[in-house]
């Protein structure tokens, strides 16, 4: 589904990613861990098409297409979703209008007719129940005045609405209390199908109490320095990142 080859990227003139290689297949859950500043969020943003990040080398194909050639909105319509670490508040843009526009842009891209107001509201009710988001939140402006937890739940809700084939969740678990973490994790698990894939970017093991990954990768200084099964997360939890650094001879 997603093939990243020798990817280099910089932000504000500083090299952050220095040769990422990663392949993701349908049905898989990948976890990317790593200390602060290792490039986790940069990778997520580069994949989503944030133009503040400049790709200097390498390639990314998504379902056989050149992802790096696409603008952010096309990537989304091709089935890629980024759950933001810090979802931005957008006063004046109502949740309903925002989601209706997004859903119908996706439909247009697939040559489907726009949803009627009734069908849209029905879809929204369904998905709200599924991810257990407070129904009042959708009456407000996008993320405006939402608590940290509400913002993260809202990301999962949007993911449920847009049904991406590849979801990249950037630190979606950070700052969540245990109840919110459970709701977010349940959402991710419920949305999982054999046809879609998930990349979880995190630096806490505790998310993995709720979501079982197929692969765990350690990102360090812009490269994936270690990949293994879910047991790697436990090892990291136990030994910290120093152990990896030592292995790398630092």
């Amino acid at each position: 589904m997603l093939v990243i080859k020798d990817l280099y990227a910089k932000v504000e003139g500083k090299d952050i990613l220095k040769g990422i290689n990663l392949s993701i297949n349908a049905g898989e859950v990948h976890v990317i861990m790593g200390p602060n500043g290792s490039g986790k969020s940069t990778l997520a943003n580069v994949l989503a098409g944030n133009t503040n990040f400049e790709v200097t080398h390498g390639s990314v194909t998504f379902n056989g297409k050149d992802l790096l050639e696409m603008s952010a909105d096309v990537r989304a319509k091709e089935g890629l979703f980024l759950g933001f670490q810090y979802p931005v508040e957008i006063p004046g843009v109502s949740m309903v209008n925002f989601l209706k526009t997004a859903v119908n842009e996706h439909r247009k891209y697939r040559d489907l007719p726009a949803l009627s107001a009734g069908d849209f509201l029905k879809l929204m009710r369904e998905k709200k129940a599924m991810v257990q988001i407070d129904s009042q939140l959708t009456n407000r402006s996008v993320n405006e005045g939402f608590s940290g937890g509400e913002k993260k739940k809202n990301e999962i809700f949007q993911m449920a609405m847009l049904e991406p084939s590849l979801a990249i969740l950037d630190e979606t678990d950070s700052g969540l209390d245990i109840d919110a973490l459970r709701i977010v994790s349940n959402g991710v698990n419920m949305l999982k199908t054999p046809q879609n894939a998930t990349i979880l970017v995190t630096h806490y093991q505790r998310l993995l109490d709720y979501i079982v990954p197929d692969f765990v990768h350690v990102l360090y200084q812009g490269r994936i320095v270690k990949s293994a099964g879910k047991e790697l997360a436990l090892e990291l939890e136990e030994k910290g990142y120093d152990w990896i650094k030592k292995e790398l001879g630092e």
Partner: protein
Amino acid sequence: MAEVTEKISAVIRISDLFSANLPKICVGLPDWFNHSREPALEAFQRMGIPGYKTENYKYTDLTRLFENENFRRALKTDEFDVDLKDVFSCDVPEFDTHLILVVNGWYDDSNNLNKNYPDGVIIKSFQRAVVENRDLVEKYYGKLAKVGDDPLTAMNTVFAQDGLFIYIPDNVHIVKPLQLINILRSEDDLFVTQRNLIIAGNNSQAKIMFCDHTLRPQNFIINNVTEFEIGEDAVIDIYSIQNQHNKTANLTGLYIRQQRGSTLVTNAITLHGGIIRNNLSVLLDGEHAEAKICGLALSDKNQHVDNFTFIEHRKPSCRSNQLYKNILDDSSTGGFTGRIHVAPHAVKTEAYQRNNNVLLTNAAKMNTKPQLVIDNDDVKCSHGATVGRINEEALFYLQSRGINEKEARLMLMFAFAHEVLAEVKVEQLRDMIDKLVNKRLRGEVSKCHSCAMDCIR
């Protein structure tokens, strides 16, 4: 020296024009009224055409506009074949208004036939009111719009002949909004002087909407002054929608006095225009009066929109709240000056002011200046101004959900504008303005759908 010569020459030309046309200007109006012209002319000559060196016109230099201006003056009602019903029918569902038409500054009696107003309400030609309602006009005319304070107001008073007169008696509520449509329509370049007087009695209520339109592609200058007296406990909403083509200079002065306990909302929506200068003066002249003062201006190409407000807290316990926003595209320019004066004895004043602006290009330019003069300690005042760009983070967020950049930008601009539009209390009107603003931001023609006026060029 050259600049000085030009200034003088424009003033002399306008003064000569007045002298040469004196009989035409004064015809049909009584001496007591015409006597106000000479002092106004003297004041105008003293102040001259406002330009960069005029403190209150720092952001709007009108010397070039008047330099070679030789437009026809609309000194009498032009003959028109306009049928109001044909020209303007607003098809906003259930948006039912009392329509009033003013063409080239002249109240159009032939089209203003529907006079089904509540008892005692007078809506008529200003000129007729001068003759027929002397008590009311004499009491209020020229009292708020003082000729010594502003050159454009002085010029207006020199040439004033007609416009709109509205009188709402005490305790009368006009439920349907009054919709005044100012139309500019001429086969040659035209200079229009319009003078309005509106008197809202104690405990009266009304919603008044001014729509400024151009019907022909000619060059227009309109100098429009309105004096508005608001009685005790009255509730008045004033909405103004400026939608004129780029060859129009719309110079307006709105002078309002509020008495005790009255509530005012003003909202000036500038959709389109060439040079726009809106002077707004609100005098809070009775305790517990409240004014919410808003404006939204959308400009592109070489358009210029300058809002100048002067809120005077003369009595204690009044509250004023200003919110002005501009979205500037291309090489358009804008200005906002918000002057607040709190008098020494006007304790427990609350006066707030905010001006937020978005520049869409590097060439667009916005000047903003708060001017607070507070002469006592028992007040709550705040002011804030921002000039910024579209929030790139928010833009990426919307794009990352599949919304293309153009649409995402529109959503953000609309969201920015909507805070001002939300202050429009008449729901159907708010919906209509919402749609107009949306269309304007999309670069589509913004006008009421079935309105035959093709305003945008």
